């Protein structure tokens, strides 16, 4: 069976959830071979994690010559590995970095690429949600080795026993690939809440919060969800950009999206319109967000949310 390369998305060797989703999808297309680009002494630990989701092989690529430079070295490393293994497909997370790697790899391998896939079928046909979620598109790569960047939450991770055999791979990184230096890097502070793009429940706040996100955060905690924000809230300086949901922020597709004090402009909708269940609380009954909802409350979020949070906590027992 043909192997499918899956680039492991990790932080300091700790494999992130989207990678397990990619491995699950990879199993539809062939035999998953995970690719670990990181410190050599972290490869074994990563292998232990990914083999539980079907990885038969784990290619370990030491990152000493890669980690200090933006994107280009990873693309070169993947190119060399793909040329060695002739995989049926290459899967990466559809993050900003993942897409840039995919773009460069496509040109290097002479292969087509698809980004922001929300599903991948056995025959390689991808599904994408486009035009602010108004259209669903099916597409296929028609040349070379399909390179597919897959969004988080595209599949439920399925455990499967894989051998997880680690194979060290030596790569040569050109001088050309080392010209954009990562001068400094500050990891995101852990919020203690689920990662926004991976969360099953998202509670978001907008202009209507007036700058106080406490009701939003408390409800998120009661529901075990992530906190998000509209662009208006971010532009007002109330919450960092990393929480922004929308065309120029993150796109989420959780089971439940609760929009509070968010009017629902198209740029915001682009980031959440495909959520399975949408709820909104807004003082303005004309707010466009209400056109999207499965349930809406016309009211003041500063009174409605705390009451909801209290009742949710009560029912949880």
């Amino acid at each position, binding site marked *: 069976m043909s192997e499918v390369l899956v680039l492991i998305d990790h932080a300091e060797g700790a494999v992130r959830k989207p990678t397990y989703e990619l491995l699950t999808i990879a199993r539809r297309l062939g035999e998953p071979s995970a690719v670990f680009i990181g410190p050599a002494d972290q490869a074994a630990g990563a292998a232990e994690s990914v083999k539980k989701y079907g990885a038969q092989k784990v290619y370990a690529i030491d990152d000493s010559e890669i980690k200090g430079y933006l994107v280009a070295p990873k693309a070169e490393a993947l190119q060399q590995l793909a040329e060695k293994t002739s995989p049926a497909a290459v899967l990466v997370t559809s993050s*900003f970095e993942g897409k840039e790697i995919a773009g460069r790899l496509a040109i290097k391998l002479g292969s087509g690429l698809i980004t922001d896939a929300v599903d991948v079928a056995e025959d390689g046909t991808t599904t994408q949600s486009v035009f602010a979620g108004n259209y669903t598109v099916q597409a296929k790569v028609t040349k070379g080795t399909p390179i597919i960047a897959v969004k988080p939450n595209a599949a439920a991770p399925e455990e499967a026993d894989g051998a997880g055999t680690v194979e060290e791979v030596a790569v040569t990184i050109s001088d050309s690939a080392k*010209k954009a230096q990562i001068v400094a890097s500050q990891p995101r502070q852990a919020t203690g809440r689920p990662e926004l793009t991976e969360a099953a429940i998202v509670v978001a706040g907008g202009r209507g919060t007036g700058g106080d996100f406490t009701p939003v955060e408390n409800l998120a905690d009661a529901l075990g969800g992530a906190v998000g924000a509209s662009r208006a809230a971010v532009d007002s300086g109330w919450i960092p950009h990393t929480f922004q949901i929308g065309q120029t922020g993150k796109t989420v597709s959780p089971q439940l999206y609760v929009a509070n004090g968010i009017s629902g402009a198209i740029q915001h909708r682009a980031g959440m319109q495909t959520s399975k269940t949408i709820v909104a609380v807004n003082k303005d009954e004309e707010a466009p967000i209400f056109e999207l909802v499965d349930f809406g409350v016309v009211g003041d979020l500063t009174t409605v949310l705390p009451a909801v949070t209290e009742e949710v906590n009560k029912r949880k027992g």
Partner: protein
Amino acid sequence: MNIVVCVKYVPDATADRRFESDNTVDRDGVDGLLSELDEYAVEQALQIKEKADSPDDVKVIALSVGPEKAVDAVRKALQMGADEGVLVTDEAVAGSDSVATSLVLAKAVEKIGSVDLVVCGMASTDGAMSVIPAMLAERLDLPQVTLASVIETQGDQVRIKRDGDVATEVIGGTLPLVLSVTDQSGEARYPSFKGIMAAKKKPLETYSLGDLGVDAGEVGLSVAWTEVTETNERPPRTAGEIVKDEDGSGATALVDFLASKKFI
């Protein structure tokens, strides 16, 4: 020094965007304009010129590839303050994927010549792939310094703040390079009346594929490396229940709804 700003002409995101029967984006039936996210690229290019040691020696050239109407995007960039415009338009380009688009843009950059800096937006508002800047860097063999929310230039050094997926990074590179900027990089200026009038006299060159030495067989729908097999309009969501909050009734109704959906 030449700064090339890549700008895309896209269907208005607030209009009814849709597909043609061949599954390409309908660029005729929907009003088009300069992609909002590319306005930030034009703005930063202009700021980099304004902050240069001798701004008069810096030329900002707006470049677009698209249908004839795409000239509107180039014109808007000229109105904002770009010095010259270049439009690559050729029937053969229609339906190109990102790979072919990047090829045409790269060849145009080479034709313009003496380009020290290529500036792009973070994504187009129609395709929204965010891959063109990386592909341009690959094709032009230039460093990619991308997704900048803050940009600093000093001589031939460029430093940016990049809000990456898991970390905030500072990226540095030496010109020539490819830079892309996000919507956090700073408000884009509105064209002034003076700018709009001045734009009419600015040089605007139009190229066909032949002018760039690109074979028609390398681009377009039929040779694309990906194929869109189907497009389906999402059925409109069935209208949900909206209740008015009265003395806590809203909260109770919402909790009941969440419970009915097994979220609690």
